[in-house]
């Protein structure tokens, strides 16, 4: 595997007058750039700034503006994917967005349900409220379904029950200390969030990760993807009441977690990512043992997957359920397996020069790509094959401690985009002296929640757990 060559990854910041905000965003879209997040900065007496991120290959353009008062022109009509970003900035930074009406609360939890739900009226329409505590072992979040009979007309999700204020709490900390905030935002995406944070810090510090560091981080990212994809397939099996598939994949996941513990000392790989280096050290014997274990795990995974594929009663429950079509996936800015299942050929691993993916890496898009539960399950199975092959390559040689070396001047902003098991995760770090001025984490789950809510419409209420499991989004790293 020949890793793609590093250059051609720039972060460009462009200051825009508030009056030109929409034109500047429109121009970025017309150049073919992809919106990948927006964030407010500045609190109390500090001047407030509003920035939007646009991805162009491995490069990221940051458009920034300073509102003249408390309000800015909204871009939600140009970029529906900016819906949550604008609502969050309104709740947490008091920014208003002209043209975004109604600007419903997102992070704030007013007690009056009519203030945060879309009114749905008509004969036989009623509401079903679920959560924040669910019947299974699931993270906390609330879903307000508007239904006729068992048919869902519209879903208003209300998350942020787990909002810990991690981004604000990290402000003022040393850059190295900030890693804990990114990692602990989410247990299941701990590596992706940490690597995104470390890469963002390194671009702030003018450091470039050396080959060994890029390899170690890629290894950790793929180990994280491995146990997550196994977990997510188990969850979909549980969602259709297919107990043997659920148990088989849960057992495979347990083996992956034990391998993580053997390699990194932690089942979820916590503490294995650092800013500016890596102390992951695996001897020739350790990597050989891991490769042997992974080969067996790969064979067993393929065998159990075949059983699911050739079980017609399971397949019949997956097809045509929770459809997210190509155009809607693109419009909502969906990322990761959810986008690829809808035929959007996008995987940030293909444009990650700070990591160690082959130059021939391409996004896995299943044939047909119907965007239903079946397709989202199939993407993960396809990606598992790829994960085993990447890990086989990465573990061919012993892993030594890696470093990052000076490569250019320190920068006033660092942005990194990393493909987590759920899709592209974006981390922004703005330093203030040697400390964190602003930390922003926009995870693959955050990007996908609005698309999930959209995909539930016109489905049966009892299918919601299945649709939800097929996206398998995190609440923790959306809520932060």
């Amino acid at each position: 595997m020949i890793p793609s060559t590093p250059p051609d990854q720039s972060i460009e910041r462009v200051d825009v007058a508030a009056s030109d905000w929409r034109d500047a965003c429109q121009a970025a879209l017309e150049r073919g750039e992809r919106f990948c997040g927006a964030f407010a900065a500045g609190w109390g007496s500090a001047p407030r700034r509003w920035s939007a991120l646009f991805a162009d290959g491995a490069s990221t353009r940051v458009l920034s503006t300073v509102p003249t008062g408390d309000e800015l022109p909204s871009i939600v009509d140009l970029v529906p994917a900016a819906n949550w970003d604008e609502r969050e900035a309104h709740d947490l930074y008091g920014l208003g967005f002209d043209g975004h009406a109604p600007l419903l609360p997102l992070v704030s939890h007013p007690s009056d349900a009519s203030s945060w739900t879309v009114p749905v009226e008509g004969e036989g329409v009623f509401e079903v409220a679920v959560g924040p505590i669910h019947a299974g072992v699931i993270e906390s979040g609330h879903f307000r379904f508007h239904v006729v009979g068992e048919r869902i007309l519209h879903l208003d999700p209300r998350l942020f029950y787990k909002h810990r204020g991690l981004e604000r709490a990290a402000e003022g900390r040393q850059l190295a200390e900030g890693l804990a905030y990114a990692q602990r935002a989410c247990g299941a995406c701990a590596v992706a969030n940490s690597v995104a944070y470390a890469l963002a810090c390194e671009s702030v510090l003018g450091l470039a990760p050396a080959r060994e560091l890029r390899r170690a981080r890629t290894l950790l990212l793929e180990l994280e993807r491995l146990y997550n994809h196994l977990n997510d397939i188990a969850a979909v099996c549980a969602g259709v009441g297919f107990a043997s598939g659920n148990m088989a994949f849960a057992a495979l996941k347990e083996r992956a977690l034990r391998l993580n513990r053997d390699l990194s000392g932690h089942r979820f790989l916590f503490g294995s990512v650092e800013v500016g280096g890596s102390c992951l050290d695996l001897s020739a014997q350790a990597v050989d043992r891991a490769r042997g274990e992974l080969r067996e795990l790969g064979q067993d995974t393929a065998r159990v997957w075949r059983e699911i594929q050739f079980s017609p009663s399971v397949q019949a429950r997956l097809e045509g359920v929770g459809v997210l079509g190509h155009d809607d996936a693109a419009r909502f800015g969906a990322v990761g397996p959810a986008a690829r299942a809808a035929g959007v050929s996008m995987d940030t691993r293909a444009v990650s020069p700070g990591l160690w993916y082959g130059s021939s890496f391409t996004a896995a898009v299943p044939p047909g790509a119907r965007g239903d539960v079946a397709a989202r399950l199939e993407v993960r199975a396809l990606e598992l094959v790829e994960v085993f092959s990447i890990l086989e390559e990465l573990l061919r040689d012993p892993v030594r401690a890696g470093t990052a070396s000076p490569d250019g001047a320190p920068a006033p902003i660092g942005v990194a985009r990393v493909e987590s098991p759920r899709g592209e995760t974006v981390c922004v770090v703005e330093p203030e002296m040697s400390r964190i001025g602003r930390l922003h984490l926009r995870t693959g789950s955050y990007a996908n929640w609005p698309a999930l809510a959209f995909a539930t419409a016109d489905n049966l209420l009892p299918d919601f757990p299945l649709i939800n499991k097929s996206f398998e989004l995190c609440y923790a790293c959306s809520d932060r």
Partner: protein
Amino acid sequence: MRGSLALRLVDAGSCNGCEHELTATAGPHYDLQQYGLSIVASPRHADVLLVTGAVTTRMLESLRTAYEAMPEPRLVAALGDCALGCNLLGRHEELAGPLEAVLPVDIRIPGCPPSPGRIAAALLEQLQQRT
């Protein structure tokens, strides 16, 4: 409670690590059901309330409601370091925890996250004390 414990989880602001490990205790490698430990769908059916996370202000009311809904006698378990108030991260204004500040804690299961083996051992010890 004699011979079995019905468990109900409330995620009060975790990173989801404790949830992964609790799910594993009910999975094929650990299979806690064989010892009489089961995860139930409602606090109305539960003997033990397992609570994870830092206890956010937004989860406080739901957590209390779940506790009030339980029949007595009832036990509260702090599952994981966050619920125990160890190395908590977050803004003071957003957190109501640690759990001990909100509910009486009977069982402490440390770890970040505690391994399935550790969760199983802590719960089995409770079971043995009560049989």
